[in-house]
């Protein structure tokens, strides 16, 4: 018996088999798997066919893209009045802030945006400097820029003139700047081994979390002037900002507490065994891990905070939504489609900000999960 065949050369390479099922098969399985599924698919297609054309007509085809005033938008059959949005955009962004001083607002927010990107960029160096700038320097510089500093040649601009997106972002930023350190301190206090400190912190957190934000804003607005000495009378924008910061801190404290609870006690014990003091243990071992573990929850908290800034309208502050809502009453533009146009625009504004924050949170979550997977192998 001899070997009948020995290959002297490798067989020609064949392309890898196409593992992806063909599109039609995918569609059949995922859209028409069985009778119920087919029925649902047909229903959804019918819904799209019914809803899409009117939406398209209202938002795009019949919309008024440029007009000097509301006359064209009031015409029967006219769709969304984007001309109104274009005309009102400066008001929506700056409120009644004096036009020749608006560069100050721009500068303040460019500064804030730069620091935020620096802080959030995963590979950016020297985050300590960025954190110091954001939490310590920015509040003072921002206040001087927005409110004015006569000694630096910046005329004062009263908060009664502030409004629009600028106020929304300002309130949200102030909430973040106060809530992050405030929440961490409250959470640490709640976990302290001093009963009195524990009770005070837990009481404050549970009290604020137990009442609606509107009640907190009412309280800040009506009771701060009562509780403070008569000649202190805090600014009308400062009061709701205080309320929002308090509210955000209480919610942040619970997130921070969850992060602290997720760190095994062995970490702190190991740090102490290495000779680190209590503060050093917290600062270099426990807090970095605890906060990194809950970054997604922190960002989700900020999404909620940003949505909640709309409620400052209850005490008469003109935030973005409030300016949009107030502008629709302008007799020059008032018309049947103005309200819907304004709300769609406002919706897009909030959607863009919130979706950006949410997707950042999801990205961080994925990165953290990847890191953990590697650890466990």
């Amino acid at each position, binding site marked *: 018996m001899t070997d009948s065949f020995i290959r002297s050369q490798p067989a020609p390479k064949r392309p890898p088999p196409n593992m992806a099922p063909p599109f039609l098969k995918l569609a059949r399985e995922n859209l028409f798997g069985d009778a119920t599924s087919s029925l649902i698919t047909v229903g959804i297609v019918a819904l799209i066919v019914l809803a899409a054309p009117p939406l398209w007509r209202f938002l795009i085809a019949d919309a008024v893209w440029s007009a000097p005033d509301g006359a064209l938008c009031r015409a029967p059959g006219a769709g969304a009045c984007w001309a109104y949005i274009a005309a009102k955009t400066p008001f929506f962004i700056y409120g009644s802030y004096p036009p020749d001083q608006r560069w100050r607002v721009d500068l303040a927010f460019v500064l804030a945006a730069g620091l935020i990107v620096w802080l959030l960029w995963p590979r950016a160096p020297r985050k300590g400097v960025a954190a110091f700038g954001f939490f310590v320097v920015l509040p003072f510089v921002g206040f001087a820029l927005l409110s004015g500093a006569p000694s630096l040649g910046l005329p004062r601009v009263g908060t009664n003139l502030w409004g629009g997106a600028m106020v929304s972002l300002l309130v949200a930023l102030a909430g973040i700047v106060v809530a992050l350190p405030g929440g961490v301190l409250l959470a640490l206090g709640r976990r302290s081994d001093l009963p*009195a400190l524990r009770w005070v912190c837990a009481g404050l957190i549970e009290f604020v979390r*137990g009442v609606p934000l509107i009640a907190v804003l009412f309280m800040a607005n009506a009771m701060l002037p009562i509780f403070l000495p*008569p000649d202190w009378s805090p600014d009308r924008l400062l009061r709701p900002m205080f309320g929002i910061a308090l509210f955000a801190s209480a919610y942040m404290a619970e997130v921070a507490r969850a992060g602290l609870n997720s760190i095994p006690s062995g970490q702190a014990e190991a740090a102490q065994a290495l000779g680190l003091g209590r503060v050093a243990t917290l600062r270099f071992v426990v807090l970095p891990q605890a906060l990194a573990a809950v970054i997604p929850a922190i960002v989700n908290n900020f999404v909620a905070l940003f949505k909640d800034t*709309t409620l400052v*309208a*209850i005490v008469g502050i003109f935030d973005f939504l409030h300016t949009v809502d107030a502008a629709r009453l302008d007799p020059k533009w008032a018309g049947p489609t103005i309200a819907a146009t304004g709300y769609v625009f406002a919706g897009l504004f909030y*959607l863009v900000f919130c979706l950006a924050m949410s997707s950042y949170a999801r990205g961080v979550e994925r990165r953290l999960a990847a890191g953990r997977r590697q650890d466990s192998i």
Partner: protein
Amino acid sequence: MKASALRRWAIQAALLLAVGGLFALAIANARANLLARGIPTSFAFLNQVAGFSLNQSVIPFTPLSSYGRALLVGLLNTLMVSALAGALATFIGFAAGFARLSRNWALARLAGLYVETIRNLPLLLQILFWYVAILSPLPAPEHAHQFAGFFLSNRGLTMPALSFAQGWPAIDWPFFDPSVNRFNVEGGLRLPPEACALILALALYTGSYIAEIVRAGVQAVPRGQSEAAAALGLSAAQARRLVIRPQAMRVITPPLISQYLALTKNSSLAAFVGFADLMQVSGTILNQTGAALQVIAIDMALYLSLSLATLALMRLYERRLRWGGRG
């Protein structure tokens, strides 16, 4: 050891003193400020005549009723709106949560679109949108949309109600008759447009959160559970009912209850559309009497007790789970 114990006491005493001092200072300031402005400092105003009317009330209320009764009406309205919106939100949330897990791609994407959009829009924007852009332009009662005894017009939603007016239970059908009332639908139970907008927006908003809770709860049940159920010969429906649901509900229920709590607190946004809930009524009373301290204290106490009652319920549920469960 002794020195550190002494330091602990010193720190705590200093903290309590500081908190107490802050309170004392605030109270002293408040007394001086209130006296200077002539604002009432007792709860006696609760018995005074309110002098305003409310657009929705489940108990009799006239402008001659007292402030205290107005607050009670507000509380009942808050509870009513929360209960209705909660029931609707549960339905929407479970439907959307299951839809997101559906094998049908189109349905899953549609539910995903709903959840992602609604969660990222402020609730206030949604309430205003429904109230100003959708419900206000509805036709007058004369030309109301009618469906199975329901009337939808710019005066709100009127629906058939159970009536005991004749002494026995009967259905009170709403009707529109110009000779009886030219301006509104008569009979039945009427929800003003403010309440409709509030309930709709709250239900859709909270529903999107409940959908995510439901999805996470179902996904938290390991796949092996349904495989084991199939191996034991259970049908898909039986497996869902007997194996998946009890385990998923354990994960779902605690966050679900906190969503109900959040919904109740969020119903305070009624103040923006002028629905007479607890917050709106207290805002009116606050403006009329100036008794900010007392009114806000009452509000806080009511909302806090609602929260604490819900938390107690949750603890009870968790304890029951521990007894019945994983050992």
